[in-house]
């Protein structure tokens, strides 16, 4: 354990991180957002899920620094009288959760199928990759909209609202597996030709063990890079679906549904309902993408400059 910690401290990875201002800034901002949003039940001034704390009389209040604002609601309130700051904190938590779990699902599906396709090759490979091609030819959003709309129509809004978070994870997770499968397959094809794979075959290990214990760890760097980008993508997809009214319900808003709920009032002057969640969303996605770019540069030895 100590040895691993020492290896980490001495690594080029940490060294490069400490010398990159953008990476440090993005990482701290991301960490801040994650910490704040996941501790929202403790730090948020209000609980937006508790109807008892919402007063319709407080609705549509501008941010505290404006003339009609109240210091109770630093970022104002929305049309239902919910405190924007608390709602954004809770919403960010939901967005990040959906992003992470959707990517987890994607990666499990995509990595397994990509490994199998790359390792066994031949017909299995052709079949899986054509499947991926077909799936990629539909846009993620289109598939998600169709699936979610059918679900909503057939099981009713009540049940849908309860299961929305799982449905979103499932739909976004399944819709994007080809991204992983393709990346993993490509690296597997390169790794498979290396002699150490022959060597472990000589040792007599089974295919499963060779794929997951020996080849997979060698394909981790591209996986890490697309994982960061995919988290950002999943958060965006979720926001887009919620904005279209197919995502998180209004009483449990994610960033996307918050943006949507404020959209109706934006012309009547209540810009803050849409603007603040949108700002948080943009910042979150930007920061994750910047980290992903940085990671790609660090993990690619060909780009070493110094």
């Amino acid at each position, binding site marked *: 354990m100590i040895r691993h910690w020492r290896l980490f401290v001495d690594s080029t990875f940490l060294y490069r991180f400490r010398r990159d201002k953008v990476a440090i800034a993005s990482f701290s901002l991301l960490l801040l957002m994650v910490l704040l949003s996941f501790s929202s039940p403790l730090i948020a001034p209000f609980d937006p899920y508790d109807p008892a704390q919402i007063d319709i009389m407080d609705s549509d209040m501008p941010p505290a620094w404006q003339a009609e604002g109240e210091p109770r609601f630093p970022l104002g309130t929305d049309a239902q009288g919910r405190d924007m700051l608390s709602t954004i904190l809770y919403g960010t938590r939901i967005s990040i959760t959906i992003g992470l779990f959707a990517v987890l699902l994607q990666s499990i599906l995509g990595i397994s199928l990509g490994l199998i396709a790359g390792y066994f090759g031949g017909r299995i490979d052709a079949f899986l990759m054509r499947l991926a091609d077909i799936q990629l030819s539909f846009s993620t959003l289109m598939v998600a909209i169709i699936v979610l709309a059918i679900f909503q129509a057939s099981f009713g809004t009540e049940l849908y609202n309860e299961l929305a978070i799982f449905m979103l994870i499932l739909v976004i997770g399944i819709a994007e597996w080809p991204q992983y499968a393709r990346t993993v397959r490509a690296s597997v094809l390169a790794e498979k030709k290396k002699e150490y794979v*022959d060597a472990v075959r000589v040792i007599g*290990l089974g295919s499963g063990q060779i794929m997951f214990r020996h080849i997979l760890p060698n394909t981790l760097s591209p996986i890490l890079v697309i994982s960061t980008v995919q988290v950002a993508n999943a958060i965006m997809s979720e926001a887009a679906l919620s904005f279209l009214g197919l995502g998180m319900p209004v009483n449990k808003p994610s960033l996307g549904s918050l943006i949507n709920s404020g959209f109706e009032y934006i012309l009547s002057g209540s810009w803050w309902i849409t603007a603040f969640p949108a700002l948080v969303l943009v910042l979150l996605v930007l920061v994750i993408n910047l980290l992903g770019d940085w990671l790609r540069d660090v993990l690619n030895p060909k780009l070493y400059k110094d």
Partner: protein
Amino acid sequence: MPILEIKNLEVRFPMRGGELIAIRDISFSIDRGERLGIVGESGAGKSVAAFAILRLIGRPGYISGGQILFEGNDLARLSPEQLRQFRGNQITMIFQDPMMTLNPVLTIGTQMIECLQTHRGMGRKQARKVAVEKLRRVAIPSPEARIDQYPHELSGGMRQRVVIAIALLTDPAIIIADEPTTALDVTIQAEIMELLLALCETHQVALILITHDLGVVSEITQRAIVMYAGRIVEEGPTRDIIERARHPYTHGLIDALPERTHPGQRLNQIPGSMPSLVDIPPGCAFHPRCEHVTDLCQTRVPGYTLLDHARVACHWVAAQEQS
């Protein structure tokens, strides 16, 4: 009673417009504890033969005929599951480049332990003990510490020692070494070969050494096989082959050794180069480069002429023997 017997082995690679026969009609056997060398130029089919024994021919190549009998089991016909009982257990292999044969992201201990877990069903602790023991056997200093290191932390020679230790893990009956020292520098080469020789002698392990270094073959092996264009052209006791080569090709190879010429003299060489496997000349594949070529050589593939302990595939030798 030979421990491994190869009978009429043939390996083909399907290609656009026909199949390429990489090795044809190869038969040889090796006894328990015997050391056999396979020599030949690049492309003669040495490595393909070695890979074929373990059924490791990469697609699209396949074994198109013959038998690989290990203690009576035909490895060419076993199911993949059955094959795994032999591969890595009874027969192991050492590859050319120790930089490439160890997985860069796993510690050497992990790689050794999982081999023992698969074949011996050992627990982690016990497997680790055995692994440390084997590392000590290949003269790696402080193996208890080395076992937790990653391949990149070791030098080339060390890595090849680790590879040998992995090959020895399951106390195999046969080790196939495919040019085990080509990637190492000369002093390390000698050390590794000595180690390999000592290990094979003390443990009664049969060694199939594939190399193009006749010096190494003469030091290590008892018997040698010379391959040319996918066929065995000569087989016999190493000493005889080195000192009294019968086949013109073997003769040429030995003559080409720098030791055979005086300083300042031009090095001997075999004129021409080995034919591509796509268009092997009819008759004896060596005839375009042979100094003793006759009409018969150009039309008929020579059969084996049996000598005392050896066999040679050459019309010229056959004619000499008859007269």
